[in-house]
């Protein structure tokens, strides 16, 4: 059982400060100190490499879903050769159950901007793009304003804080495509194309935007960088779960009383998190939880004892932290309907580039619709499982996996409910 002390935790990304989105308020509360420090305090920061080392040892695990150590990722950038280098910030946030990055855009855009600028310095980036899903029009405007303010203050642009570091920072709006959250699809979309994920290798660090070295990080990941620079790597790695440390923006939705985004240390017990979110709605019993966005394997209530919100703990019961967007389902939830709806999502969002995903996502949805409508047969469940194995690990990007896992795990973990729905038909026929 984890001993994460979350009751005394004070938020750092989304602190309770009025008008923090205004640059002056942000500065008054210590904003842009971290950036100034890495750029001008040569004693503390011996060049970009030192920043990368600090971030690496903080072990900020990517908050976009894959959980990769941000500093380590940065270190994959090839040495600067005088040509352009890019940082692409991922604010596409489209995985069902995920709605956290928008909170940063809304309440504290500068913590993200500052973090991205520090990352840019560390990797000798020349231009930063933040890709925000088009539906977030309101937040796009807010981020654009914040960036304009930072330009005005001289925090973005030429020779920031009198140093020889210069960088540009632009917002690129999406236009309705979940797949553009996949990092290489995002690059294609930034390049003005259909959001087809790229085949890897080459990896973006070698050939990213316009064939140049590029790093992609989630918006929350980058926002944490500011705190790491201000407070040190040890501070960050001392928060929450050891192997997956730091504050996490948990997005909690579904059948709880107070859904919303909560900033708390990683590694909070799942059941505590439900309590934090006000407990189950209408006093209903918990049936299941999807811990980190729709693609992470569903967990039955009986699997949750002692399980905490970090990758290691969730792995023991066969799930993942993903985006930490937790969807809570009560006892009245129709799991068949839920799985069909998830499959509908992935079918709708498959870019259609590669065979197993283009064809498989539709097939999964159609079989599930048949089952949902009471026309399924038990053998359809095995067919579904077969189709998932035909998709997994055989595609260009991970959307196919994201579509397959929920089907596989939901059927495995709620097989009786699916069989019951299938048998209805058999009885009706008899």
């Amino acid at each position, binding site marked *: 059982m984890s001993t994460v002390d979350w009751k005394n935790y004070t938020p750092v990304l989304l602190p309770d400060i009025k008008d923090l989105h205004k640059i002056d308020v942000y500065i008054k509360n210590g904003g842009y100190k971290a950036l100034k420090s890495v750029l001008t305090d040569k004693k503390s920061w011996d060049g970009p490499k030192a920043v990368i080392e600090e971030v690496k040892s903080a072990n900020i695990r990517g908050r976009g879903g894959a959980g990769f150590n941000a500093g380590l990722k940065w270190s994959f950038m090839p040495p600067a050769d005088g040509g352009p280098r890019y940082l692409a910030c991922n604010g596409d946030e489209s995985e069902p159950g995920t709605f956290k990055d928008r909170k940063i855009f809304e309440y504290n855009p500068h913590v993200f901007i500052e973090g991205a600028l520090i990352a840019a310095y560390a990797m000798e980036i020349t231009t930063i793009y933040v890709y925000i899903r088009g539906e977030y029009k309101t937040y796009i405007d807010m981020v654009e304003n914040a960036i304009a303010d930072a330009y005005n203050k001289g925090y973005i642009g030429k020779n920031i804080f009198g140093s020889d570091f210069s960088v540009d920072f632009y917002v690129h709006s999406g236009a309705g495509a979940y797949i553009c959250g996949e990092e290489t699809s995002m690059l294609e979309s930034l390049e003005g194309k259909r959001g087809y994920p790229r085949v890897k290798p080459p990896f973006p660090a070698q050939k990213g935007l316009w064939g140049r070295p590029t790093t992609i990080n989630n918006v929350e990941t980058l926002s944490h960088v500011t705190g790491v620079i201000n407070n040190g790597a040890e501070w960050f790695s001392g928060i929450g779960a050891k192997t997956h440390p730091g504050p996490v923006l948990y997005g909690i939705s579904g059948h709880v009383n107070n859904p919303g985004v909560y900033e708390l240390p990683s590694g909070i017990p799942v059941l505590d998190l439900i309590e934090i979110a006000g407990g189950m709605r209408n006093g209903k019993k918990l049936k299941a939880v999807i811990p980190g966005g729709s693609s992470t394997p569903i967990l039955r209530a009986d699997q949750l004892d002692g399980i905490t919100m970090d990758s290691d703990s969730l792995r023991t019961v066969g799930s993942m932290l993903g985006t930490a967007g937790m969807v809570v389902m009560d006892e009245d939830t129709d799991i068949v309907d839920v799985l069909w709806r998830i499959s509908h999502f992935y079918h709708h969002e498959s870019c259609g580039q590669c065979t197993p995903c283009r*064809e498989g996502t539709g097939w999964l949805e159609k*079989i599930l619709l*048949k089952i949902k409508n009471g026309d399924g047969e038990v053998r359809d469940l095995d067919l579904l499982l077969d189709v998932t194995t035909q998709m997994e690990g*055989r595609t260009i990007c991970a959307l196919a996996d994201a579509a397959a896992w929920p089907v596989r795990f939901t059927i495995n973990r709620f097989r009786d409910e699916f069989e019951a729905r299938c048998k209805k038909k058999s009885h009706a026929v008899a």
Partner: protein
Amino acid sequence: MPEIFIDGHRYEFEGDHKVLQFIQDLGKEVPFFCYHPSMTAPANCRQCMVKAGQYMKDRETGEYEVDENGERVIRWFPKLQTSCNLMAADGMVILTQETDELVQRAQKDNLELILINHPLDCPICDQAGECPLQIQTYKYGPEGSRFEVKKVHKPKRIQLGPRVVLDAERCINCTRCTRFTQEISKTDQLTITSRGDKNYPTTAPGREFDDPYSLNTVDICPVGALTSADFRFKARVWEMNQTPSIDITNGKGTNIDLWTRDNLILRVTPRFNAEVNDHWMPDAGREAYKIFNENRISRPQQKLDGEQILSSWNNAIATLSEEIAATDNSKIVVIASPHASVEENYALSKYTNLLGLNQPVFTPHIEEGTGDDFLLSDDVAPNANGCRLLGFTELDKASIKKEIKKAELVVILHDNLIDREVIAADDLKEKFVVVFATNNSDTSKAADLVIPITTAAEHAASYVNVDGRIQRTYRAKETKYTERRLDLEMSEGRLDRYGTNFDNWVTEDNKIDCLPVWKFINRISEHSGLECNFNDGREIMDEIASTLDSFTGVSYAAMDEQAGIQLSIKKETSTSK
């Protein structure tokens, strides 16, 4: 040298190789759809899966690591890999469907998925018989389908452009067609529209797919989604036979295949030649099949009282011999042709030499604006350089006109000088005009004697393209005097071999009464007591190669082996007017 192990066999390699291409080059196979050697590899069909790993080497010694049984240690990639974009590396281990069950399974699974929304209408699909999807399903696919829900429906019979028709339901989204317009023809006329399983290729709304190279997309489409508006439903592939040839409608000398059924050429497709046209050809050249079938001159014709009437070969030979004998040598002009092969031109010139006539003259056929930076040149004749290398006198239009003016007997070899406005019909008035021609034209109509000759589809002969490459054709179509079954060099399709006169497609109607120029020369020489005895193009070429320096080393065998031979030409002459 770096080594790679494929299905347990060791191969050495140098340089960069994609594993799929490497395997193909070994003459082995891995099924695939989206990969095309001349375009980028999007790896989107996911059919070419292999199991890949790496023999581990000890960092220090550089020796392979071995386990306790003395077997080399392999580190397998965690997932199956698409071989089309996997680069061969030293010590790489590859297992294909030949040796690995997981690979077999993956390929089968993928085919099942490709087929779930596929209409499976092979019986009415043009692609059937040459369909990679059909072939690979047969070889590697599942026995049946478990897909019992509704298929996705998409637009069918869409006229994408004047020459290309789309059936989007058959499309497997390999993006070969869109990549072709982006990377090869560079017109950017096609895109994939929509998303997911609704994807299909299209033009911009209201725009036509009129890319001058559009029909290449039909060739590379791995299914029957893109079909040729012209060829659609005309023939099944297995009814035709396929013969290598050269595009005679342009100076580029694009390598092609002629597809014949019952002695009609039904379609023209490009044939790979890395030095000339890669895998491609312009749409314009595909129209050429009509030249071989339609509007042909069959039997010699002679003018009688201003009317051309059918004559006989004996009559034609006698008439021409008499005309030559009756005309002062200085009043005879022989016009050779950039539209005729090297052999035809040579045979004619040998005969006229024996007669003691002047060297033939010729004028190139340039149409300004035809050329592009790709596979079309302004020179629209296939053999202007052949004429030059044979040492014929090159004249511009005005000089040709002057030569004709001076002459009383004009012999024109296969060149529609009137149609292409080098001369006017009036320029030939009051002269005896002999035209060797394949098709009726204003020029042939102006002739007093028309000698019907074989087209490039009916003889084996060589052409020297604008870049100086000599390449040859094969006999694809019988004439009245040839017989496919007796000619070892002629290809035979299923119908040719097994068809009977009771089959729908077997008739005698489509054989033209014409002769190769050299056969005619043989007969007329014999008539005049001269020594010309040409058996076939191959022998003529041997004779040319042994007598003319510019053709040293050229032979049919050498051309066949090297897909043509580069000759040295003076570059500036190839573009002169």
